[in-house]
């Protein structure tokens, strides 16, 4: 990992790219990896394998936790030729997506900031765009109340 940045920053940076990879389609991760250069050689350490995560809520929204129900999750751990390990846990059952996300996670740890941005930036932008589109449609359904004027006043 790049040793010019502190560990909490490094974790936050990695958390960000992992959250982007967790939502990116397999094809989008594959083309992002291709953009970053020749595909690295990797070996599978664990998985890809599908299992469950128990999702929780909180009583009343902010009280003590309760189990809401499970979701499918696919995880994968890979190791690059350089020895760097990459991990992925992604919602759903797409094994290829989980493996590509783990490869990208490993590769991103080896890259400098500029190369990272060119790999993860377009994926993040596409997800921001999707969220913005839904937020814009929601905003158009926001109710604007107007007060009725009393005719006698």
């Amino acid at each position, binding site marked *: 990992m790049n040793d010019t940045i502190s560990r909490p920053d490094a*974790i936050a940076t990695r*958390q960000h790219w*992992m*959250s982007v990879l*967790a*939502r990116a389609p397999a094809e989008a991760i594959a083309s992002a990896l291709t953009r970053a250069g020749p595909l690295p050689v990797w070996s599978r350490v664990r998985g890809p394998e*599908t*299992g*469950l*995560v*128990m*999702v*929780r*809520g*909180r*009583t*009343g*929204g*902010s*009280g*003590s*936790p*309760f*189990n*809401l*129900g*499970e*979701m*499918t*999750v696919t*995880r994968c*751990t890979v190791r690059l030729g350089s020895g760097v390990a990459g*991990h992925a*846990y*992604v*919602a*759903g*059952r797409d094994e290829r997506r989980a493996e590509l996300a783990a490869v990208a996670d490993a590769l991103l740890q080896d890259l400098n900031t500029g190369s990272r941005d060119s790999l993860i930036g377009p994926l993040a932008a596409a997800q921001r765009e999707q*969220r*913005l*589109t*839904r*937020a*814009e*449609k*929601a*905003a*158009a*359904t*926001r*109710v604007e*109340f107007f007060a009725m004027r009393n005719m006698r006043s």
Partner: protein
Amino acid sequence: MAYVAVKGGERAIRNAHTWLAEERRGDPAVPDLGLDQIREQLGRAIDRVMAEGSLYDPDLAALAIKQAQGDLIEAAFLLRAYRTTLPRFAHARPVDTAAMRAARRISAIFKDLPGGQTLGPTYDYTHRLLDFELAENQPPPDAPRAAPDLSPVPRVPDILGREGLLEADGPMDAEPGDLTREPLSFPAGRDIRLQALARGDEGFLLAMGYSTQRGYGGSHPFAGEVRMGEVSVEIEPPELGFAIDIGDLTVTECQMVNQFKGSKTQLPQFTRGYGLVFGFSERKAMSMALVDRAMRAEELGEDVTAPAQNPEFVLYHSDNIEATGFVEHLKLPHYVDFQSELQNVRRLREAVERREAAE
């Protein structure tokens, strides 16, 4: 004798299932239904199957709906069976509904609440007239857009709670019980009750919630807030040592606000019922909140007189997979049981007839 019957049964079962597959497919001249079509165009059915199957996976729900020919309880059953084949990797951190990217958010108690009222893609205010244009496969118009306010939307309890007029949520850190690991037992804590309601049958919860409104354990509810949208799910894998975000879920949350007259130790304040379900299912989230509040009757010192206030009654009957199993098991062979009942009835009739003849 018994073996002969079993062999005959096997052939009949095989042929029945082959016919079922043909019936499921329907007229082969009509194109086969794609799972993507079910997922994209029957979203509320997907949501219901995921909620009652207690497994969030829209693609699996689509497959289950296709396999069950649209029988949503059968589809939920298929998801429940499938989940038993998978290992549990982790439990997630509780989802933060205050950080929800809300597509819909309404309140029936504050007109001008902070964050505003956002209708979202709702059936409310539609006229419930059949739209024959849908049969023509015309593309819909584009949804209008407006500049969004992307700041988090405060929750109604946070607004009312400031003055102490609304009961607080209580402690945050107890480890919740899990119905998928431990069978239901009583008294059931609120964590267990909420888990059971979240996977309970929508129709049952609707009827139970409705019964409280009609006077069977009424608690004067107001829809404090209903919101629907995406929340992020985070887990903390031990191999990483920090939390990671693994994707989004759509959930619906309902905050029901109810009257409470107070007690010897408590000033009058509003109490709450809570609903949270997978997918976009306002009817279920609201019903869940009504029933959650009704089941708190004993805790709040109210008279327990109605079915919805009785956790045993509600929780033993809310699961449609268990209910289906027990109701439909009546179809299984009861030949021997029935033979003995038949003999009993014959004996009783003979006894009565003998007595009448003697008189």
